[in-house]
């Protein structure tokens, strides 16, 4: 059960110095606050579901709590939003696409939880152990998919990056040569003379960008087409496949109270809250990249190379997440199996 969770990157002894060496209270307060809020909301759920048995109004409270829980739950850095954001950055996606991806994957995640509990617990009356086994299998598949997805991104983005490098190198060499030639001419003059070299670099890179746009790195316009959506579907599927342990617990509890529908409603509202937060983070990621593109594109030469590098890095992150989660180096929420 609960497998790799403890195999954290830098495992320490159970009595390790982490506490003694002191986590200094700084920005971490936000994380702490998020944590305590989530558990607060989560803990209120069981009592509210119980109350809903006799008092219909409690269902509204339940939905409110679930929504808040979803928002807070997703605000902590988790693999879902990390993968989605990295994917968006790697793939020149639009913010709008990011929002759609976030909602779709959260919806899928809720759906998987409901179907799983509906089929396993309700129809088959399976034990928690069986359900947990199913959950873990789904989890492994989901992580493997993220890794595969990341590998594919790295492959394509790596190609783009290498090509950008190749285009860049001769231009840079020329730029360096130019700078050498004019080295003795004083700073101001040097700077001035240098400008054409920069322009050349930018021009080359721009050409390259256009070329790439058609064969390797799709522009946002293209992604909005049918092929683009299919690609996005991969991300939705990989991330949304794995249900949230919290949702499973809530659903089973609601089922036992004879209020399965309330659990289902809570799960979808939770998903809605999660989607809002993930979408916000995705939009920030996309905007950050746009900002980076503008900065590197206007001020400096080699902007395209740089952006290919960023995309390559983001693709690498997706792969890293997948592999890390798969082998338990990155502990996401553990699946409850005891």
């Amino acid at each position, binding site marked *: 059960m609960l497998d790799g*969770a*403890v195999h*954290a*990157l*830098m495992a320490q002894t*159970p009595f*390790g110095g982490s*506490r003694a060496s002191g*986590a200094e*209270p*700084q*920005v*971490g*307060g936000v*994380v*702490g606050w998020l*944590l*305590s809020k989530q*558990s607060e909301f*989560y*803990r209120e*759920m*069981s*009592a509210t579901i119980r109350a809903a048995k006799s008092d219909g109004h409690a269902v509204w409270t339940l939905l409110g709590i679930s929504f808040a829980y979803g928002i807070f*739950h997703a605000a*902590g*850095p*988790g*693999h879902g939003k*990390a993968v989605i*954001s*990295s994917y968006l950055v790697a793939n020149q996606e639009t913010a709008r696409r990011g929002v759609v991806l976030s909602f779709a994957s959260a919806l899928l995640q809720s759906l998987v939880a409901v179907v799983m509990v509906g089929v396993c*617990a309700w129809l088959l*009356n*399976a034990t*928690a*152990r*069986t*359900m947990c086994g199913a959950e873990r299998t789904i989890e492994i598949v989901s992580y493997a998919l993220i890794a595969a997805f990341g590998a594919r991104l790295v492959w394509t983005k790596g190609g783009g990056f290498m090509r950008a490098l190749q285009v860049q190198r001769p231009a840079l060499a020329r730029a360096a040569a130019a700078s050498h030639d004019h080295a003795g001419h004083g700073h101001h003059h040097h700077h001035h003379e240098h400008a054409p070299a920069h322009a050349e670099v930018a021009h080359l890179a721009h050409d390259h960008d256009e070329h790439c746009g058609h064969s390797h790195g799709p522009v946002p316009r293209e992604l909005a087409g049918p092929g683009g959506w299919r690609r996005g579907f991969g991300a939705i599927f990989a991330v949304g496949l794995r249900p949230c342990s*919290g949702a499973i*617990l*809530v659903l*089973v509890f609601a089922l*036992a109270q004879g209020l399965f529908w309330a659990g289902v409603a809570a799960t979808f509202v939770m998903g809605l809250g999660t989607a809002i937060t993930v979408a916000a983070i995705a939009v920030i990621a996309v905007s950050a990249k746009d900002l*980076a593109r503008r*900065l*590197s594109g206007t001020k*400096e*030469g080699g902007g395209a190379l740089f952006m290919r590098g*960023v995309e390559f890095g*983001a693709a690498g*992150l997706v792969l890293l*997440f997948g592999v890390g989660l798969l082998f338990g180096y*990155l*502990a*996401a*929420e*553990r699946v409850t*199996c*005891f």
Partner: protein
Amino acid sequence: MGKAIRRVLGLLLSAGALALGAGVAEAHPHVWITASSELIYVPDGSISGVRHAWTFDDMFSTYALQGIETKTQGVYSREELGPLAQTNVESLKEFGFFTFARADGKKEKFQEPVDYFLEVKDGLLILHFTLPLKTPVKPKELALEVFDPSFFVDFKFADKDPVRLVGAPATCQVNFQRPNDGTVNAQALGEQTFTNGDNSNFGAMFANKITVTCP
């Protein structure tokens, strides 16, 4: 290049930190356990092991009992819960039973659990099990901590009789220290812990510390 590169590198680094921090922040508790523990002494005054009784929270109790066949609906016998208890202790092994002991500063190991069983009381599932020490010890000071390093399980000791000594020499004194208020501790979770990607010991700040001193 300098400025833009640095700015974007900063962005990338924060993304990486976010990635590594993933485990930390997602690890909010999903299971709440109210524990009470007994330290078992043998006649010569050595400690032979720890006997736990862990009461699971409402939601998790219901989840764990899902699908378990019983003769009478809603009434669970020890036998009917036997397989689940077996699963529990087998699974807990991977986590060192969330129980960490030191005798005069030296880390002690536990054997496989014995006398384990489950019962349901007022709808809540209670797991009983005894962890014998590999070898009984007779330290001046025994420190016992019960916590989940990854904070998936939140341990709280019972208000009444959180810790008891069974058969201990009369001179032994037990001191029980609860974790400070959870929120305060959570807020002490610094940037450092966060960016380390090290969530292995995250729950340590929520540890319940038991100290027994026998002069």
